[in-house]
């Protein structure tokens, strides 16, 4: 019995030494893990989605391989509406290796403007970004670092204002209507595209329509007009405008604005 007890003692001691040295070396090797984030890339893909791509280079100079390296991002608006979500996974980063992962998040601006409860076309806001980086140290000890960030959203058509329609005679049946438009582009991208306006009288009858093109760099104001012919017989003092915004990044409409 004494031999068995002695063997248990020796085995226990060795296993304790192995467990503690493995744990300490695994934790200690994290300091030799380096992350290098390059300049984020931004653009528009074929589906008219805005993408943000962040290249991350991971250099593992530690004692062990890193398993299940994962970056995840979730973007939510103030009401909890999910705008975008994506995860990037690198199954294994072997010791002494460099790995570059591209973490890409795509945002469909049109969907965001159409589906959310807040009109982000004309209202500045803040988005919540839930970001997390996870990995398995030595492919055994899972570790996760998570953070919540708030990023500002700048409305592309901030303070969108339609002036009072001005009418000038053209002939006996039609007149030229001029509607002043102004806004500020608070968005992080330049805006260029078309604003289409359909004018309806108080009997919901289309009395005329017109459009104008615009090109507004980010953080710049815009002041312009839309001119179109309307039938004088159908024109009433009150009615409403249906406004459509068509740009390469976003299609939005109709935005209904009453006049008179």
């Amino acid at each position, binding site marked *: 019995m004494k031999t068995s007890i002695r063997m*248990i003692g020796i085995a*226990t001691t060795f*296993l304790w030494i192995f467990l503690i040295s493995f744990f300490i070396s695994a934790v200690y090797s994290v300091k030799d893990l380096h992350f290098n984030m390059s300049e984020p890339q931004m653009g528009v893909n074929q589906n008219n989605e805005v993408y943000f791509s962040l290249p991350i280079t991971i250099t593992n100079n530690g004692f062990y391989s890193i398993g299940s390296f994962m970056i995840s991002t979730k973007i939510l608006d103030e009401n909890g509406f999910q705008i975008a979500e994506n995860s990037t996974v690198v199954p294994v980063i072997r010791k002494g290796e460099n790995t570059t992962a591209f973490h890409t998040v795509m945002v469909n601006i049109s969907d965001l403007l159409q589906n959310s409860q807040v009109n982000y076309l004309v209202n500045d806001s803040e988005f919540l970004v839930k970001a997390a980086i996870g990995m398995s140290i030595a492919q055994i*000890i899972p*570790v996760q670092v998570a953070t919540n960030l708030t990023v500002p959203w700048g409305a592309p058509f901030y303070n969108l204002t339609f002036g009072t329609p001005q009418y000038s005679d053209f002939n006996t049946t039609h007149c030229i209507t001029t509607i002043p438009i102004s806004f500020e582009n608070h968005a992080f991208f330049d805006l260029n595209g078309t604003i289409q306006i359909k004018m309806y009288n108080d009997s919901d009858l289309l009395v005329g329509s017109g459009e104008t093109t615009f090109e507004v760099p980010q953080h710049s104001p815009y002041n312009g007009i839309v001119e179109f012919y309307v039938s004088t017989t159908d024109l009433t003092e009150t009615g409403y405008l249906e406004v459509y915004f068509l740009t390469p990044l976003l299609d939005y409409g109709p935005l209904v604005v009453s006049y008179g």
Partner: protein
Amino acid sequence: MVEKNGKPESIPRQLVFRALKATLKGIFFYFLYFILWTMFLAPLALIVPNLQGIAETFLAVYILLMVIGEFTHGTIFQYFFDAAKALFIIGYLLLSLKGGIVSLTYQEIILTVDLRLFLMFATLLSLLGLSKSVLQAINYLTQKTEHATI
């Protein structure tokens, strides 16, 4: 009086010898902790709040149980304290590691470490230590009974 190599050993001499052994063991363990702390664990203390407190409380209780175990050497109580040491390791690890999922918050950053696998191995090894103490106690009692019978 205790017989040792045919010569009787006085109780004060025995106590002095045990105290010396316990002191040396205690110093060795503290020295081991000191090396581990300064070389590996000190940088972690910047991230983990109260890590030094947790480690030192553990060390203090462990050394205390070890010293008492050393003083009670040659009696059944030695094995009681060995078993207590193994149970203390299990309990302390379970409590200090909060069941294996450790979460730390620093400003807006939340760090979560899943130590369940480590905890499982540590618990199993402590249980092995506990079983060793129980076996030693059984062995001690068996030998004592045999001596009494002879």
